[in-house]
């Protein structure tokens, strides 16, 4: 599924980046953080348009020939959700870092060890962050309809199918699809909650 692939990629970019931004102190860090925070509210249609312009056969990346493909949709969604995951995980890790910085300094731990410890320690909070990113990915329609083209059996996803059925006046079918989308989203949240409570209980055994 497009949303899951983009979520995975966005996590691999977002969580490490968020952590580095939380720990390292460098010039422009604040500016960079402000930019990433504002990118959380990036309008999907704008992302769709920009990705379209790049991937169009007359655009700079046109030779790839991936416009109107699931790959194009994944690229657009990664751009949309990576800032969310980066900013939120940065927030979480930064708070941890304030508490533990001195401890790690005294233990003379390598930065990479600290990073792993932070991510491991905040894994439950990060799950919620990932859920937020996933929510954005599966609910989004503006970007994927531009770069995917809503092609039957190729780039049509739940949200674009809902848009299409609504425009055909098949409101019942559109609503049905919407409910199923909700159920998917709900079951994933429940699964995450269950994982959390399950592992917390056994963590103390």
């Amino acid at each position, binding site marked *: 599924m497009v949303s899951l692939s983009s979520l995975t990629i966005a996590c691999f970019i977002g969580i490490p980046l968020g952590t580095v931004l939380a720990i390292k102190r460098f010039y422009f860090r604040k500016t960079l953080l402000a930019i990433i925070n504002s990118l959380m509210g990036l309008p999907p249609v704008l992302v769709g348009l920009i990705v379209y312009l790049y991937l*169009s056969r007359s655009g700079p990346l*046109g030779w790839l020939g*991936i416009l109107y493909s699931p790959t194009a949709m994944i690229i657009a969604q990664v751009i949309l959700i990576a800032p969310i995951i980066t900013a939120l995980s940065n927030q979480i890790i930064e708070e941890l870092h304030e508490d533990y910085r001195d401890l790690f300094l005294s233990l003379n731990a390598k930065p990479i060890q600290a990073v792993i410890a932070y991510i491991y320690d905040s894994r439950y909070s990060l799950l919620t962050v990932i859920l937020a990113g996933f929510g954005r990915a599966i609910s989004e329609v503006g970007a994927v309809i531009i770069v995917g083209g809503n092609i039957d059996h190729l780039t*049509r996803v739940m949200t674009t199918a809902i848009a299409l059925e609504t425009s055909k006046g*098949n409101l019942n079918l559109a609503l049905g699809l919407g409910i199923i989308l909700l159920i998917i989203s709900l079951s994933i949240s429940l699964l995450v909650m269950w994982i959390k409570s399950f592992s917390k209980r056994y963590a103390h055994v």
Partner: protein
Amino acid sequence: MRIIKKNLLIIFVLFFQATQVTASDAIILQSTTSTKNSGLYDYLVPLIKEDTGVSINVVAVGTGAAIKNAENCDGDLLLVHDTPKEIRFIDKGFGVQRYNLMYNDFVLVGPKSNPANIKTTDKILKALKKIAETKSLFVSRGDESGTDAKEKSLWNLLNIKVQSMSGTWYRETGSGMGTTLNIAIGMGAYALVDRATWVTFNNRADFEIIVENERILFNQYGLVTINDANCPNINLEKANLVIKWLLSDEGQTRISSYEVKGEILFFSNFNK
């Protein structure tokens, strides 16, 4: 229960199709929402695949957007309905050849209450004049689609400057035909719509056809080939196979025999 089953099947398909890899042997057809929403492609694409071996991915946007996408080389073939724009597309060197493919017509739809008091004997121009005079709500596509161009040309004939009315009784949605119809029905407004979309549209409420069957409401669909001197990456060979099929006796007969709710939606007219 049947609806639920049908839905579940769709969901199932949706779930897995997204994981498919792009088939590079498929051509991209830039086309319009009216042809797509009518189900014409669901009917034609498998037939074409069977006869020529070419699969087609249809991108359905307004005619204006489809032409712009084709100018960016993001389509292997163009099927739209705005003849002057199609000719301009060729004149600018983006396209090579244009064929008449099929036609149907536009109709004016509106609420049963008929606030502009349009009579069934009124011609379209008179009807639009009444709408403007009574300032009855009218919803326009406003997206440079073929339907939008036709509608704007009618207002031009009447010398009514609708652009300056935009936002008052004249409302532009900037959306596809189906979305625009939904909005018109929500507001109780008149709208110009192609017959194929109207026949297949399932949320009509108390709306009905107010004006129809006029020469001026003729709606011609054209098939335009893309210039490969301008777009070397397009799949001209496969596009030509599809054109050949669509213009063949077989293709033309198939188009004219596509029916929804007992109505023929498109009449083929290549070489007519």
